[in-house]
């Protein structure tokens, strides 16, 4: 506070000077920005209606503001006269046959504006003269005679429509392709078409024919099998009937001229057969003996392997114990309850 009071004059002087400088600076910048010191060229035009017109409305050429509307008047003949100016930097665009167009957005929100279309002539229109608008025949006639440079419209809806056209063309071409594909598929299914699908269908037809032949053969074989089965069944029925009468069968077996006597009286054929079977059994026993010997020879290696595994487990237990004793890891490994093995030899079993 003492500082402020001691230097009150200087502080107040600075306070005033800064405020004055700021307002002067803002006024100069405003003047530059709003073209206070630049020359503007004034013109007039007329429209059928004042709808969409407003004072200060920018006049644009290819998106650039080249001027603005100064005044709007309703004349006695019910036409609307506007006074507008064009910036000196764009005065060379104001050529003979230029027209003005009031663009109004079709949906009523934004998008409208005053468009300036320069003429194709080279002469610059003098100040304070009339420039026709597209509302009247004079302007339309200049456009019809192609005396006006009309740039492409920056209309969003038009742009969307333009973008949709190639899409529609693409969709049309896709539909044509799909139609052709369906025709081909139909022809293929009908067998009129050569190609992989046609070949497959032909092969399927051949296979079906072959299957039919096979089934016919199988039916013949099945009939034969059924006939044989029938015969076997008849024989079995007779045998069963014979077996049913036990007295007759035993008598027949005990008869010296019966079946057993006949069986034994075969010139040692049965003996020979039994001998060969015993020889086979001896051979098998020898092979089994050799296998057991091999197992006995490999047992030390298995024992060694088991011993190695045991040692590894002991070392693993030590490592785990070391980890569990480590204060940094203590409690980090979940304890596991030991489960004794269920395997034990019969020798270790307690009675």
């Amino acid at each position, binding site marked *: 506070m003492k500082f402020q009071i001691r230097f009150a004059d200087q502080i*107040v002087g600075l306070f005033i000077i800064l*405020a004055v400088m*700021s*307002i002067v600076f803002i006024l100069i910048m*405003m003047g530059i920005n*709003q073209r206070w010191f630049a020359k503007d060229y004034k013109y007039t035009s007329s429209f059928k209606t004042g709808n969409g017109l407003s004072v200060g409305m920018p006049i644009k050429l290819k998106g650039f503001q080249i001027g603005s509307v100064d005044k709007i008047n309703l004349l006695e003949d019910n036409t609307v006269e506007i006074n507008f100016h064009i910036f000196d930097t764009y005065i060379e665009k104001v050529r003979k046959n230029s027209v003005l167009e009031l663009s109004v957005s079709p949906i009523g*929100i934004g998008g409208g504006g005053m468009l300036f279309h320069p003429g194709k002539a080279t002469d610059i229109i003098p100040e304070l003269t009339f420039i026709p608008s597209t509302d009247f025949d004079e302007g339309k006639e200049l456009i019809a005679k192609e005396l006006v440079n009309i740039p492409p419209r920056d209309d969003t809806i038009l742009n969307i429509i333009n973008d949709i056209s190639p899409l529609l063309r693409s969709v049309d071409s896709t539909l044509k392709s799909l139609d052709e594909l369906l025709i081909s598929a139909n022809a293929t299914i009908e067998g009129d078409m050569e190609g992989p699908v046609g070949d497959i269908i032909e092969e399927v037809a051949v296979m079906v024919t072959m299957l039919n032949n096979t089934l016919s053969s199988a039916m013949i074989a099945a009939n034969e099998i059924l006939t044989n089965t029938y015969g076997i069944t008849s024989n079995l029925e007779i045998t069963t009937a014979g077996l049913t009468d036990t007295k007759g069968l035993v008598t027949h077996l005990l008869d010296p001229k019966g079946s057993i006597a006949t069986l034994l009286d075969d010139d040692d054929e049965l003996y020979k057969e039994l001998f060969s079977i015993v020889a086979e059994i001896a051979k098998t026993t020898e092979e089994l003996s050799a296998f057991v010997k091999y197992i006995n020879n490999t047992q030390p290696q298995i024992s060694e392997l088991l011993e190695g595994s045991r040692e590894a487990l002991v070392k693993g237990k030590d490592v785990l114990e070391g980890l569990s004793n480590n204060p940094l890891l203590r409690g980090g490994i979940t304890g596991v309850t030991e489960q004794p093995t269920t395997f034990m030899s019969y020798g270790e079993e307690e009675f």
Partner: protein
Amino acid sequence: MLGKLGRWMINHIKALLYGLGFFFQIMKATIGFARKGQVGRKVLTMQILFTGVQALTNISLIAIALGAVIIIQGVGILPQFGQGDLIYPILITIITRELGPMLCAFIIIARSGTAIATEIGSNVVNHEIEAYIAAGIDPISYLAVPRFIGVTISLLLLNLYFNFFGLIGSYFITQFIHPIQAAEYFRKILYNLHPEDIVSSIIKSLVFGVIISVVSIYYGFKVEQSSTEIPQMTIKAVGMSFVLCMLADAFIVLIYYTLY
């Protein structure tokens, strides 16, 4: 009843005439202020220091906050309706033309209007005014005029600072939340800021400054004997300043919209 109404009306007309006479006396003394010596100018400097310089912090903070809020809200909402550029006329209307001078006036009423009424009221109670008169010093020239000029100039300058901070300072705050291109922002602000906006703002701040200073000085001198009258008169000065500032604002706005 009719007699009471008549007396009430006569008293108010008398008070109004007295107030107008007081105002014209201050104006008359103001014209001759430049011829006064070093003492009067020192009082004026101190008044600008207390009213203007010391209120600058509050004014700048309010201006930056108000401008930033308008920009952030406007930039977020207006483009949804395809009217993003409306933010600039809205900002200028609020900061420069309408709220800027009024908020500055409210702050000066709260800070300096009350101080002036209290100080002069104390002078009256302590018979300092009588002492000035006895010493041959005109209390209007010595006490009222420096305060009148000081408050008016301070309010004008504070209003300029309010505009400066509100339109430019708030832009930099907004960059932290909703970045806008600097060149585009300042170009559009300057394009939408018209001389009539600045003139309207300057006229408002001058008129508010005159109202606040004259009303505060008037109610300060209205204290008669007791120190208990000082807060009463201070409250009346504040209330009357608010009312007159709002009426003057409405009147200036009416003229502005009639002309433009």
